């Protein structure tokens, strides 16, 4: 194990897969000479050259569509979109083509494409650069969706994504790029899709944290233990499609209480979907309604005090956990 920043773990994954498979190419805005808006791809142009690390014009829909075409005919493209908000410019190619081509053409082709993009609030970037949109992609059959929250998972999931035969939406978090974590050494550290990570074991309440909220949920669990004597089990699903529902259900059946935490909006969110699944499949095991902690149902404001209260922090997760432990009815922001 070696301590490594999330950003560097991602770079190592890209470099290893570029070395391992010459069909892998990177495309994106300012990923080469500039080194990437968040420096994830820094140095890769020098090692792999302009043919495989391609700076593109600012043309998101076309970059993604080219990734689709290239993936259909023999390459394994990894497209970087500068932030998840810009993926909306490419939504046509992502939904109508990347996700559906295999199905609508009767299974004749595969689309082994990875689309990387960061999301998240906290840097005062306002309503067009701060949102968490994983729920949009989770909604679409044909896509895989990864939301790594640690350096080890960032590396292992990205390597798995590049080797996968399906289109993968790989969602990083801006606030995590500089966070260090232990990463297994060697170039075969793979994290399988559909395998949740139990970040912390506990028997009193299950807290499911999505993307960066897995980290926030762990912080909340420490507070719950120290200040309330409550042992929370924290689960990071790591991938939303496929979803390791079994691990979550097994935990809920043991703790009988569940809080789901996400940075995205409440309506039609990841937590809404997961709460429905838990309600359908573990209703008899619940001692309190599943509770959600979500981002506020507003476009992300710029002003710091407003931004701070527009996405979840540990204190709200603690409150939600205490509420389900006391059997209080779910309120929340929705």
């Amino acid at each position: 194990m070696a301590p490594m920043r999330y950003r560097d773990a991602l770079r190592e994954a890209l470099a290893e897969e570029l070395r391992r498979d010459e069909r892998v190419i990177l495309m994106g805005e300012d990923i080469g000479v500039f080194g990437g808006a968040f420096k994830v791809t820094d140095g890769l142009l020098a090692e792999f050259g302009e043919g495989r690390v391609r700076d593109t014009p600012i043309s998101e829909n076309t970059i993604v569509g080219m990734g689709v075409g290239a993936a259909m005919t023999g390459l394994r493209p990894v497209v970087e979109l500068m932030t998840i908000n810009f993926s909306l410019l490419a939504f046509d190619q992502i939904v109508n083509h990347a996700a559906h081509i295999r199905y609508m053409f009767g299974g004749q082709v595969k689309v082994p494409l990875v689309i990387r993009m960061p999301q998240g609030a906290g840097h005062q970037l306002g309503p067009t650069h701060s949102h968490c949109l994983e729920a949009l992609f989770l909604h679409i059959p044909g896509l895989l969706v990864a939301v790594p929250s640690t350096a080890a998972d960032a590396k292992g999931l990205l390597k798995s994504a590049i080797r996968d035969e399906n289109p993968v939406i790989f969602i990083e978090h801006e606030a995590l790029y500089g966070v260090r974590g232990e990463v297994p050494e060697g170039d075969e550290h793979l994290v399988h899709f559909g395998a949740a990570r139990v970040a912390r074991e506990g028997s009193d309440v299950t807290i499911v944290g999505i993307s960066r909220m897995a980290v926030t949920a762990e912080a909340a669990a420490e507070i719950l233990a120290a200040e309330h004597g409550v042992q929370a089990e924290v689960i990071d699903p790591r991938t939303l499609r496929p979803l390791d529902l079994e691990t979550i259900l097994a935990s809920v059946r043991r703790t009988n209480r569940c809080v789901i935490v996400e940075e995205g909006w409440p309506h039609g969110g990841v937590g809404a979907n997961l709460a429905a699944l838990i309600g359908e499949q573990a209703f008899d095991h619940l001692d309190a309604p599943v509770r959600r902690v979500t981002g506020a149902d507003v476009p992300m404001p710029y002003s710091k005090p407003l931004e701070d209260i527009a996405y979840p922090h540990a204190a709200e997760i603690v409150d939600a956990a205490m509420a389900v432990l006391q059997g209080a009815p779910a309120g929340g922001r929705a």
Partner: protein
Amino acid sequence: MAPEPATLPAPEIASEWLARMTLIRRFEERAGEMYARAKVGGFLHLSIGEEATIVGSVRALRDSDYVISTYRSHGHALARGTPPENVMAELFGRADGCSGGRGGSMHMFDLSRRFMGGYGIVGGNLPIAAGIALASDQLGTDEVTLCTFGDGASNQGTFGETLNLAALWRLPVLFMVTNNQFGMGTALGRHSAVTDLQRKGESLGVPGMRCDGMDVLDTHRVLSQALVRVREERRPVLVEAVTYRFRGHSMADPEQYRSKEEVALWRERDPITTFGALLLAEGVLGQDELARIDADAIAQVDAAVAFADASPFPAPESLYDDVYVLDGEVRGTYTTPARSAPGGETPRRGRQEPSSNDEIPQQLTEALAAGEDSGEPLGEPA
């Protein structure tokens, strides 16, 4: 560019071009009839009138080249060699359709013939074409991708984005704008500030050429010249094929945006009758051979309809096939039935409406009769 007289190819080649154009015409006419008889669902966009544009361009390609098209793509599949049986079966929504009954009229596909699909989103295929060309380039081949789209697509953002990128990266892609004079019901002059479409790529570094899309010889000649530039000079070219669709945009088109006189004028330049007349005048084919080519096309279409009628509907249990590539190592829940119907029971919400003379699978009939659409009781995850 000064028009050069296009010379006739060898007789057997000229004859094959005529035969293929005739097949497309007869196929499309029959498809329209089948639509009227509710054998075909959804939208049906016919390419009647555009046969020379299709055959002239596709015949300029090598087998190793790629073709990618639009929602008006039956003709491209047929030109590429996809059997009419499988194209008709796709229109009928049958298991033997060239997209397995998943795509329908707008989404034909035949990987084995490098026909990379029809696409329902206007302009959606341009980036994909550039990506295919990128792979060809990166893998060191000399394959070219022919990307066809309509005049309406030249107003989409992907047009500018993709032409710019293809020129910037010197990708081997030939863009062909099939100018059939209308973006759906909006005439060219009402939807594009620049109506000289071949020039629309100039500011993006893509030179333009124009061909008479009603003339298979001219289309083939211009495309062949363009392909040399694309393949050997590694520069994308935009070719405008000037043509006309004789039928409406789709089957549901009252055609209030054009006059009968205008249509009649263009019909005088029918690409099939004019080419047939030329071959007759040049002594390439006799009257009896012309008649045989037409009879042959009709017989092939008859066979295609019989085949499509006999082909089964896709099985209900295939509803969830090919959403994902599953490699055996996967864990977790991918789709709804994987979660709620362990053991692969009847797929839920598999709404199918086969025509009355076809057998509806019993399982589904019972489910529909019982008014069920929420399926099996929920169980443990698969």
